[in-house]
């Protein structure tokens, strides 16, 4: 009972080495050697056997082998020689195959992909074909697989205008060249760059494409329009390349970043890259506010007030004094349209009681309140868009659809940081990886660590205590700030009541620094307390520890910022007269300036002295050989805190982004110096892309969202001061927009539709609800799509496993046939053949 299989051994035998769907210009070395060895050993036996086999098969004819394709085919009872299940589950490599089997194995498509040039060319032919189809917006073929396997040419004829029909004689390379030629230039360059070929091959391909193009151009009659288009496009591309070159030469801090990355790895580098990103955000903000607000107002400065202040050194720290009536603060800005007049009218300079506008200028009119309102709004809006875009991009890169099972494999292949350059750092990294692999192995060996109920309870208790301490510390500090700010507020009220009392103006201004100092102290000391508390706890994995410490620090910073915003908007803005302020927005702006500056001073002191002293302490007293680690998460949170202050302050102090830029610039050099001298790379595994995503998300959600909520609340509900700033006299800042609309309607009755639409959209809350509802629906839809894709991935994985089973089955049955025939031919021929 022979189970005949439809292996067309005739063809297979003759073209075993050559047959493959790809043009192989390089044959496998390893398999060739094996085959050579085998053929030497077995000599002519195989050839003879195969011929006999062929003859036998030809005689017996071919059967239908449809039943063999299913993996569930039970062929164990077909063949008694079949060893057992063990053979099925053994990997293919351990078998001792005959040379024919080896020949067939070596010419299987999966073993020829990705190495030989021909295979790559074929693969990229398919990709360029797909790209052309997409670009020409033809109905695409849905099941066109993008696998690395070269696909079968059954997808239809190219209806090109050129002469390259899909013809067996035309090589794959020429077809690829043809496809490349027909793509747009940008796509062509992208495809060329992505090909894993050597440079000489790529430039050959490119040259062929360009030659073919010039050939065709010279043979066809090209209209002048298309020629012009080509010229314009190539000029644009050249311009784009030179712009990229220019941008690249501008790259800030390239050398410094490379040094840090080379010494400490990608983790610490991500902190500095984050700092650079924040710098660019602030630069953008500064450019916008500078061009639209500061410059017009600075050029047309209003009349100087009666008080003449001189510059004392204290202004740099307090932001008050000389600075309070400059373009830096809100109070300086005009509340009416700036017009440039031909003559300097004297009547423009008469100071009335705030009713007459004191800035009259030329024929170019510039509506200051509106400009202020829209500039701040647009700047924050564009920042939001850029943030959300970078957050989604980063999220897309780091998101994993399915739970990763291959932890050890990823550790082996992806954990070596090629950026690290110094020998000591390389040694450190090797040690780290070694430790991590040992830990993973230990985890795998143990399986579930069986913790008793007692131990679990104890651990939960310890966690509970730690969290209680942290929350208590946070609440304590919040109350401390609340009462201290209240005390300062009352002090200021008293001061304004006793105007006649003898007092030192310098001391008064220095007292304003008390609250920022207290807040910065809290920000510096409490994270240390959290670290101490975490030291006594025990965590499952280092990443859990990172997340928990991050959330505790975040909780602290959010509460501190919350209480400060309440203090400014709820206390100071509500009743500015009680502390003798004519312009509360300027005061709040000055406060923010002071906070920012104090934050910077304390961070600098912490880096210069704190880390330095801690290193000395740990070396001399604790006698540790390793330097202290650079705490990336904590430093990034401090950056985010500073940036939140800057965003809240833009409304009150249009020049605050400039201050932030200077601060970040100096901070970069201070931190770099401190890291180089005092610290070492973190020992625990640090997932860079995940942490970067988390930081960008934190920058967007609590930080930017909170700041914009603050700004929106200020604009919407709080009454601006009546004697300073661009919104004086209005009930709320938003009314500037409304007034414009009313004025527009008054002047042009035809635009009343626009005004009514504006009133409906902006003032009606229903619109916001509907918008939010639509967003939620879109998010839900996308999450469903992701779930569906997850299911598809698991199905495809199962399919791949089945295919593997099929392959093994076919190869082993081929081998078994061969073995059977060989044993049959060796023994004297008997009538009853065993299957």
């Amino acid at each position, binding site marked *: 009972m022979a189970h005949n299989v439809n292996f067309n051994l005739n063809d297979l035998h003759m073209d075993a080495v050559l047959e493959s769907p790809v043009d192989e210009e390089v044959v496998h070395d390893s398999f060739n050697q094996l085959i050579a060895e085998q053929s030497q050993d077995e000599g002519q036996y195989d050839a003879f056997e195969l011929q006999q086999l062929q003859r036998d098969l030809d005689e017996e004819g071919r059967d239908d082998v449809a039943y063999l394709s299913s993996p569930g085919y039970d062929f164990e009872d077909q063949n008694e020689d079949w060893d057992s299940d063990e053979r099925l589950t053994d990997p293919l490599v351990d078998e001792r195959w005959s040379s024919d089997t080896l020949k067939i194995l070596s010419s299987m498509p999966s073993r020829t992909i990705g190495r030989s040039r021909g295979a790559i060319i074929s693969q990229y032919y398919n990709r360029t074909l797909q790209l052309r189809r997409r670009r020409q917006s033809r109905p695409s073929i849905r099941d066109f697989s993008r696998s690395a396997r070269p696909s079968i040419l059954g997808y239809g004829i190219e209806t090109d205008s050129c002469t390259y029909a899909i013809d067996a004689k035309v090589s794959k390379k020429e077809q690829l060249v043809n496809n490349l030629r027909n793509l747009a230039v940008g796509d062509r360059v992208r495809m*060329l760059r*992505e090909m894993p070929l050597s440079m000489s091959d790529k430039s050959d391909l490119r040259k062929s494409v360009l030659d073919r193009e010039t050939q065709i151009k010279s043979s066809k009659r090209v209209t002048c329009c298309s020629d012009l288009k080509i010229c314009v496009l190539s000029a644009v591309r050249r311009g784009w390349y030179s712009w990229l070159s220019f941008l690249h030469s501008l790259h800030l801090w390239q050398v410094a970043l490379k040094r840090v990355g080379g010494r400490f790895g990608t983790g610490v580098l991500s902190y500095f890259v984050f700092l650079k990103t924040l710098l660019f955000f602030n630069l953008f903000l500064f450019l916008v506010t500078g061009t639209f607000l500061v410059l017009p107002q600075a050029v047309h400065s209003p009349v100087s007030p009666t008080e003449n202040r001189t510059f004392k050194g204290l202004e740099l720290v307090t932001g008050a004094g000389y600075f309070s009536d400059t373009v830096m603060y809100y109070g300086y800005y005009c509340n009416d349209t700036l017009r440039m007049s031909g003559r300097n009218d004297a009547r423009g300079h008469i100071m009335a009681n705030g009713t007459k506008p004191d800035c009259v200028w030329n024929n170019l009119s510039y509506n200051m309140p509106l400009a202020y309102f829209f500039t701040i709004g647009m700047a924050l809006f564009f920042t939001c868009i850029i943030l959300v875009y970078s957050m989604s991009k980063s999220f897309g890169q780091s998101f994993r659809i399915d739970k*990763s099972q291959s932890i050890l*494999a990823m550790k082996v*292949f992806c954990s070596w940081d090629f950026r690290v350059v110094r020998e000591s750092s390389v040694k450190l990294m090797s040690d780290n990886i070694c430790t991590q692999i040992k830990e993973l192995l230990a985890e795998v060996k143990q399986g579930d660590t069986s913790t008793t109920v007692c131990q679990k309870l104890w651990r939960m208790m310890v966690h509970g205590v730690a969290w209680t301490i942290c929350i208590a510390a946070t609440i304590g500090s919040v109350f401390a700030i609340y009462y201290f700010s209240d005390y300062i507020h009352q002090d200021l009220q008293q001061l304004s009541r006793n105007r006649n009392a003898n007092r030192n103006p310098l001391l008064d201004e220095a007292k304003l620094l008390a609250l920022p100092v207290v807040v910065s102290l809290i920000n510096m000391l409490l994270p240390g307390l959290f670290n101490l508390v975490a030291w006594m706890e025990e965590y499952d994995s280092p990443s859990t520890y990172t997340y928990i410490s991050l959330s505790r620090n975040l909780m602290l910073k959010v509460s501190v910022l919350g209480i400060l915003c309440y203090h400014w908007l709820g206390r100071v803005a509500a009743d500015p007269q009680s502390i003798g302020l004519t312009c509360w927005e300027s005061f709040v702006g000055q406060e923010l300036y002071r906070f920012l500056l104090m934050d910077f001073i304390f961070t600098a002191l912490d880096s210069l002295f704190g880390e330095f002293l801690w290193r000395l302490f740990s070396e001399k007293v604790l006698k540790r050989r390793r330097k202290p680690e650079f705490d990336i998460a904590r430093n990034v949170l401090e950056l985010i805190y500073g940036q939140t202050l800057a965003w809240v302050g833009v409304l009150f102090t249009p020049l605050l982004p400039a201050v932030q830029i200077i601060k970040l610039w100096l901070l970069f050099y201070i931190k770099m110096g401190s890291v180089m001298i005092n610290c070492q790379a973190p020992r625990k595994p640090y997932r860079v892309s995940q942490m970067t995503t988390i930081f960008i998300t934190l920058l967007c959600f609590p930080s930017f969202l909170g700041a914009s909520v603050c700004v929106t609340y200020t604009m919407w509900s709080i009454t601006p001061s009546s004697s300073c700033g661009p919104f004086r006299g209005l009930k709320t800042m938003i009314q500037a927009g409304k007034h414009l609309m009313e004025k527009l309607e008054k002047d042009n009755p035809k635009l009343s539709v626009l005004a009514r639409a504006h009133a409906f959209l902006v003032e009606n809350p229903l619109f916001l609800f509907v918008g939010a509802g639509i967003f939620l629906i879109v998010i839900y839809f996308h999450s469903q799509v992701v779930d569906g894709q997850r299911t598809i991935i698991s199905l495809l994985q199962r399919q791949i496993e089945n295919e593997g089973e099929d392959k093994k089955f076919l190869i082993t049955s081929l081998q078994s046939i061969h073995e059977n025939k060989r044993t049959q031919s060796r023994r004297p021929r008997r009538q009853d053949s065993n299957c």
Partner: protein
Amino acid sequence: MGNKQTIFTAQQLDAYQDCTYFTRKEILRLFYRYRDLAPQLVPLDYTNHPDVKLPYELIGSMPELKDNPFRQRIAEVFSEDGEGNMTLDDFLDMFSVLSEMAPRDLKAYYAFKIYDFNDDDFICKSDLEKTLNKLTRNELTEDEVRMVCEKVIDEADLDNDGRLSLEDFQHMIVRAPDFLSTFHIRI
């Protein structure tokens, strides 16, 4: 964008720009780095395509590669002759693939070739053992190395043939978002 340089023709520079992820300035800067390795061997005029190959020892002594345990494999993979002796084209190719802008698939392809020590287009157990030993500087015991190799093949081998093919490797890399940032050399 003046054509003041005489090292390359304009067409050569365009070809390099189109085939790598570098701009003109970066290509020239890389040329000078290449030349600094052996000023007497590398001419200043590449317009007639001189056939200059720098031996592996010079390439391996570059500060970016000097302490990298995989530097020999990297040089071998990117060199034409497979021995590590690199022409300027190979040099540019290597740093282009290792730069920030190269896409994940391209990097995964070359990473696969780097980790494939015996060049049989599969990462088998012996390749894995060599990789591990280079990663950890032979600090793991034999037992541990064996266990890690088994576990890795277990995790990553999808079609159960006992070794990792290019597809298995790429499938695993897709799930490791850190790969893009670690497989990067800045020059």
